[in-house]
């Protein structure tokens, strides 16, 4: 829900947005509510619907403002596409079996060259591939330096994406003391430092953290005043998407900013210390939600991700399986097999309904003991 809102906030125009979609030789034009683009799956279903290709697996791409053909395969790049479309969102659809992956990448559509402005973009969902972007389904967030535009140059905010890699996070922290400028002059205050990097770990292999870097924040929460154990617990609790703000021990490799307006986060708040970024906190936490879904196994069936419950107003009424099913069909599509988790979900729901039907028939009958 908040994701949808953020998408809306980024969009420049109000009201509807025009979409021009090309599949093979056919074009379809339709409109989308710019403020409520919905989910990628819905959009995908919509595309299949308007092109009348309900059972064809396709790849979806769009051209961004620089004329690059970029893939749409998840909610984030879908929202990016919607928010940057001006005025028209141009969609290109390819059949999956005869897809040309090399089509994606920079300079692919209009050869308009403006690579430099892209280099320092903190947007990590897009590859700034000079050559070819890999298979869209392989896309995953990677570790990166973020929020360069809103942090002081002496600080560095690092996002370590554990998700999708087998590498351990691989670092240790320790207590220490650092010198701060306070109203009473220079003061020695306790601080938390990185004490060791495990060879081959995520922290070491990304090169974003180094021994003796001082940890200032963990996922937007200041660590000052917290004990080593508390900070350890915070980091482990956030380990799937860990965002650490550090003051690097080596200040010579700091990113020097030429243009401060190129960032996606909007206003520049360089003077602000880490403490004054509560909005960032909300954002950091929000983004993290997506990869934190728990898994449920129903009746020893297939594992599936736990979906978000419907908004509070709806969930007050009892949500039966049938209603849920109805809801998903109402969206106008059945997702492709590529979106395994979703489809598995609905399939197992169906099974459950059938099973329940059977059980209600033999109410006092036997239930198999494990």
């Amino acid at each position: 829900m908040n994701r949808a809102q953020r998408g809306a906030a980024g969009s420049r125009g109000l009201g509807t947005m025009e979409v021009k979609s090309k599949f093979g030789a056919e074009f379809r034009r339709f409109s989308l509510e710019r403020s409520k683009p919905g989910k990628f799956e819905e959009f995908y279903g919509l595309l299949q619907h308007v092109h009348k290709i309900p059972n064809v697996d396709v790849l979806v791409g769009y051209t961004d403002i620089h004329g690059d053909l970029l893939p749409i395969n998840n909610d984030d790049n879908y929202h990016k596409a919607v928010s940057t479309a001006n005025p028209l969102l141009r969609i290109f659809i390819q059949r999956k079996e005869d897809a040309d992956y090399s089509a994606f990448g920079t300079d692919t559509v209009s050869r308009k060259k403006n690579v430099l402005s892209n280099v320092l973009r903190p947007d990590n969902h897009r590859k700034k591939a000079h050559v070819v972007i890999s298979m869209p389904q392989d896309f995953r967030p990677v570790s990166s330096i973020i929020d360069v535009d809103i942090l002081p140059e002496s600080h560095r905010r690092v996002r370590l994406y554990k998700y999708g890699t087998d590498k351990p996070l691989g670092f240790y922290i320790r207590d220490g003391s650092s010198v701060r400028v306070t109203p009473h002059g220079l003061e020695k205050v306790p601080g938390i430092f990185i004490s060791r990097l495990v060879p081959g770990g995520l922290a070491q292999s990304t090169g974003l953290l180094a021994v003796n870097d001082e940890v200032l924040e963990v996922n937007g929460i200041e660590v000052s005043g917290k004990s080593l154990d508390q900070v350890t617990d915070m980091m482990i609790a956030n380990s799937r998407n860990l965002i650490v703000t550090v003051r690097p021990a080596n200040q010579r490799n700091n990113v020097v900013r030429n243009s401060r307006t190129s960032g996606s986060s909007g206003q520049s708040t360089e003077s602000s210390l880490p403490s004054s970024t509560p909005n960032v906190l909300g954002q950091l936490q929000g983004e993290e939600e997506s990869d934190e879904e728990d898994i449920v196994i129903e009746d020893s069936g297939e594992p599936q991700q736990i979906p978000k419950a419907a908004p509070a107003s709806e969930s007050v009424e009892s949500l039966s399986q049938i209603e849920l099913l109805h809801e998903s069909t109402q969206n106008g599509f059945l997702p492709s097999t590529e979106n395994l988790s979703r489809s598995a979900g609905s399939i197992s729901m169906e099974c459950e309904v059938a099973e329940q039907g059977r059980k209600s028939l033999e109410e006092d009958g036997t239930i198999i003991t494990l």
Partner: protein
Amino acid sequence: MRRFLRPGHDPVRERLKRDLFQFNKTVEHGFPHQPSALGYSPFLRLMAIGTRSGAIKLYGAPGVEFMGLHEENNTVMQIHFIPDQCQLVTLLDDNSLHLWSLKQQGGASELREEHRFTLKGPPGSPPSATQVTAVLPHSSREVLYLGTESGSIFVAELPWLRVLEGRTISPEAVLQRIPEDNCNRRSCELVEALQEHPKNPDQILIGYSRGLIVLWDLQSNQATQHFLGSQQLENLYWQRDGSKFISCHYDGSYTQWPVSSDNKQSEPLENTVPYGPFPCKAISKIYWQTTKNGLPYIIFQGGMPRASYGDRHSISVIHGSQQTAFDFTSRVIDFFIIFSSDPAAEFDDPSALVALAEEELVVIDLKSAGWPAVHPPYLASLHCSAITCSHHVSNIPLKLWERIISAGSKQNMHYSSMPWPIDGGTNIAPDPPQRDLLLTGHEDGTVRFWDASGVCLHLLYKLSTVRVFLTDADPNDNMNTLGEDEWPPLRKVGTFDPYSDDPRLGIQKIYLCKYSGYLAVAGTAGQVLVMELNDEDAEHVVDHAEADLLQDQEGYRWKGHEKLKTRDGPVRFEAGFQPFVLVQCQPPAVVTSLALHSEWKLVAFGTSHGFGLFDHQQKRLVFVKCTLHPSDQLALEGPLSRVKSLKKSLRQSFRRIRRSRVSSRKRRGAAGNASEVQEANAKFDQDALQEMELAPVQRKIEARSAEDSFTGFVRTLYFADTFLRDSSRHCPSLWAGTNGGTVYAFCLRVPPAERRMDEPVRAEQAKEIQLMHRAPVVGILVLDGRSTPLPEPLEVAHDLSKSPDMQGSHQLLVVSEEQFKVFTLPKVSSKLKLKLTALEGCRVRKVTVANFGSCKTDDYSENDLAVLTNLGDIQIISLPFLKLQIRYPCIRKEDVSGIASCVFTKYGQGFYLISPSEFERFSLSTKWLVEPRCIVDMPEVTSNNHMHNKSGTENAARKS
């Protein structure tokens, strides 16, 4: 978007919160940790106990208690009540004296420190010159006599504690009147005892350490009589009429001396070594009590034969031909005798002996034949065997309460029927709102049932599970049986017995159903006992079953302890809770979770290997589930394979102890010197920081994975009647949460009551939820259609709760150490969450649903979660929206055992151990507050009548 609203901006809610929540530490239950001094006022009939951490606690009639804390946190060495006053003086080991008063304030008495004072000598004198060794509050209530190591006796004026310079009794002045051939300057080193003449307040008896005793006249300022003891002096005691006194000595002897004004030097009347002829230990304190029948009571501490009984802690009572040496299991700190305080009475007629040992208080009835012990209504030794777990049950039905009391009274037959002799003050606290039970499980396999309704934590009943098992110890091995001619006539008293025969007997989990009287108890060696309350003795066979939690998994070796051997054939059980079913987990690992459903007659138990469900009606194992991850070798091998990490953990715990020692001194810093405490804390922090810089402590940052150790450890089990499979039909279910963040849900089929014995209980796994953050699951709860937690089993059947709402959809609350998550049911979709660790860096240690009532209106109450974190904070979190309501710091975060021992009640109170022997009681509720409220009235004093002074008891200085 609701959950993104910042909390705390709703003024209505803020006001309501003030009516609902309030944090108070109300009372300390149990026995003071490390007592160091004892005092008694026969005038107020109050007893005072000082501790090594500088606390002072006053006790009178049950419910009458006061507590004070010296800012210095130094050991209290001596306590002396001022005669006929609500005042007392304490001497600390830093040589400071403190005057405390009981003052009435707002209808109740309070203990407050009034003045403090440290004796200062002339510049350049050694510290020993002013080291106070003996204190005598004079019956005139105007002065204190302070005997010192140098032999001088200083006089301090009350209540300001100012030294009256001119009145000091110096050794030189004393020696003036004593022939020099007998004494020299060294005879007057160190004042050991100071006693006022019982009939003549102008005379005091001064005993010096080397054996010289002098009767000093305060009017003429000179020694009127002196007594030359040949042995090192320990203590003195006046006979009631003042014609004789008795001295006790380092060699284990005591001597009677006559007092007459004609003789300047007296010879002893009698010199006895009660446990001679071989060398004996010192007699450190002695009482001489006269009776009507002429035979005195001689009561003394110590004096045992050095070689064979030198290690005993004893107090001997001699009355004519009767002689008993009460043998204590821990060191005797001090004792006093309660005797007739009527000034007109001719005889002492002692009624009770009150002895403070290091680990317990023992009171002996001296009036009844055989000198039986009196059951104390407070100061219970919670730790007579180490506490291993506790369980609280609120609002016990009267019927069950009476049955437990009657079972307990049969166990307490050997106690004296004497009413509690220390009965000063009046308890004016309102009656406790309900009957509450606190159950403590102990290392020796016992469960103790405490009345936790009010201020006095009182032992109701003690249950032992040992009889079910075959142990090495012979149950008939009675330490008390002694032959007729046994000498010395030792008799064991007290209950403190820290030695466990077999650690496997230790109790780990307790669950009591207050409606049915079913009790489930689980222990260290995987034993689970289900018991039923029986009002009669009975002999029966305990049904025995084994639960193999590994379920034929191969390649696993259990290297831990063996399971307990069971007794074959019928076992005799005394009235009370009697076991009828024993389930033993295999491997016999410690039981980590337990749940009992008395309506379905099912008991569920979990260990580090898995969990099982047992039908205690049909006495049949329903199912077991192994929760082990295949790679988790460590969990299987048992405790022995962890030797490597033992060294490290030992080092860590030593570090922790060292640190907590420093900070425990400040645990109850008075509000007045907050800045001082802050300063001290800052300094401590700085020191700690420096220490860290010397040896940096590292912490590994790593995501949890399924391969981590002990992921299969079952942390919580929960029974619920809810919608597990579909939203139209609810069914019984069992939920289990593990250390690795997995929740298992089993659908149960319990046959209807009429066919309960005919059809088997069936179970089928319905759901398995894996929390992605993989933190240990510490609580599972189902909320009904009105978002109210489901009631306890049988609660509805007894009309004590509304039936749960089965119309609306149910919700599942899973509490892990890091997050609170609400899911919908039956389709598990996540609805709400509160991430505690990610935001605050603290983890959930304990969580309970508590009901909070408003103090303003009777008709409003709500359910919230009471949460204790690993930082020792208590947080209240609302249901079902998971909003943090309020947070209170409660326990120091270094106090790991305190945090681990915390137990919440259903009505927003709680207990945690502040020492092995003391529970601190706290309250989070404005409505339910159990705290002492009492009043001590000054009895009428007839002025200028010092003749009834009983300061003898008060002045007996502590010896150790």
